[in-house]
């Protein structure tokens, strides 16, 4: 009996020692990480950037989670955001079909009433920030300096002019998720690039297909290499590349406002980056389904595509 008792206390003592040892190791580990992050932020950031692309292969988690949180205010539909996240994480890997319909620029036959590209809210974050080429850096174009920022759009007459232009297409039903109505934006914004509009938002007679297509954005024709800037303060949801949009950037500005910049030659930002109004985020190009260099600029407010020209003069 005595022997057993002794054995038990001895065993208990050793277990206690092990616990202390284990806790010490864990504490040292935690302190090491703390010290590393405090004194060697660059090294720990390097570790994170190697792991993060694996976690965020499909979408920027922070932006996705924030968008989810924002739905609770009731301004954006929770099912729409959940659908976006679900599709990006598990679903179709080919949003290109829909993009072609939205873009409506290629020679592919797509009905103008194609389903809304809900799934494009969080497109894949593919490789970004290629090294700028010499021609990009020594571009013949002057850098575009944003001059006047707007807070309240001041052109209700532009809406009337636009509606008059679109009157000839009144026989066509507006595709779901697009609107001709003017909706005030409660944020500071600026034109992404200055240049002539080569193709407007809305219905247009397709030059090759000889049929009416809907264009979800505004095309601004400028030379390859012209820098373009962020429409407003925000966060990069995606900076990726695909067949239709080429190199594109999708920004979220809060309050349900998204902007997209397509056919770029260079991207200066990547998914998760914070951008400031007027910050240079890329250079114009003709990547993807584009017949010539231009910036395809889209504005989406509360899940509805709106005419960017109401808000800006390009």
């Amino acid at each position, binding site marked *: 009996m005595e022997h057993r008792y002794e054995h038990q206390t001895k065993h208990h003592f050793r277990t206690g020692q092990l616990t202390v040892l284990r806790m010490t190791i864990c504490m040292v580990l*935690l302190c090491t*990480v703390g010290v590393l992050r405090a004194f060697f932020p660059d090294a720990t950031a390097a570790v994170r950037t190697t792991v993060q692309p694996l976690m965020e292969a499909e979408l920027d988690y922070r932006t996705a989670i924030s968008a989810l949180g*924002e739905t609770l205010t009731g301004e954006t539909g929770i099912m729409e955001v959940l659908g976006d996240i679900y599709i990006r994480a598990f679903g179709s890997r080919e949003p290109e079909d829909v993009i072609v319909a939205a873009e409506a620029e290629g020679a592919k036959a797509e009905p103008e009433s194609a389903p809304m590209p809900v799934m494009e809210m969080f497109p894949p974050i593919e490789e970004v920030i290629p090294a700028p080429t010499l021609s990009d850096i020594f571009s013949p174009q002057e850098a575009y300096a944003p001059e006047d920022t707007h807070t309240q759009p001041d052109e209700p007459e532009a809406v009337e002019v636009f509606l008059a232009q679109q009157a000839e297409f009144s026989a066509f039903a507006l595709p779901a998720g697009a609107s001709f109505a003017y909706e005030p934006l409660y944020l500071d914004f600026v034109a992404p690039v200055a240049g002539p509009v080569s193709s407007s938002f809305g219905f247009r007679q397709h030059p090759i297909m000889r049929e009416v297509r809907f264009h979800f954005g505004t095309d601004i024709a400028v030379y390859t290499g012209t820098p373009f800037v962020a429409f407003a303060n925000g966060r990069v949801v995606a900076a990726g590349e695909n067949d239709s949009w080429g190199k594109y950037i999708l920004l979220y500005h809060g309050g349900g406002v998204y902007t997209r910049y397509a056919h770029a030659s260079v991207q200066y930002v990547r998914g998760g980056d914070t951008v400031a109004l007027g910050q240079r985020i890329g250079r114009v190009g003709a990547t993807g389904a584009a017949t010539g260099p231009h910036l395809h600029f889209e504005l989406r407010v509360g899940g509805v595509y709106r005419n960017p020209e109401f808000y800006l003069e390009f």
Partner: protein
Amino acid sequence: MQPARITISGGFITLIAILYLFDANNLLPLLAITALAHELGHVLLIWALGGRVLRLHLGLVGLCIDYEGQGIGYLGEVAIALAGPLANLALAYGASLWGRHTGGETAFFLAGISLGAAVFNLLPIGQLDGGRGLYGILAYTLGPAVAGRVDRVLGGVLIVALFAAGLTLFFWSGWNFTLLTAAIWLLIGYCKSRGSAVQYAVTHF
């Protein structure tokens, strides 16, 4: 009345260290607020039902509260289990209103995290609140033996399903390991509570 003890395991400290190392989005403080609201929800309901909190344990497989209370009953346990996710939903709603008021993206991020925590914890898997709630309901209607068995099997099946989904995502998306990690984490908790499911569910929340 002796005060409640707070115990922390080495696994928990390691988990925090790893999260802190890879945390690029300042997730950790928001996660702490979310967890605090969650546990506060449990504790407030335990007190409201006349129970006594014995211990708050911060472990590798999550936070758990040991409590005792006479006359709480199975339905009381269900209420206590659901109080955590409910607190998270309340926090999520509050944070989103706050974010709408101030336009702060961090508030929306907190709202999203809290909403996610509520949904995740409501999964009917043994050690999660959803599992405990389900156990309580089944124990009240069909008896604890059946409840323990159903809870055990359902939890196992769900973890396997999550694991399969995680593996699919992992290979399909090009090594996205987030869902797989969550499944493994759940599996560790499941194995740790093996064999004592009934007692565990009765005494641990």
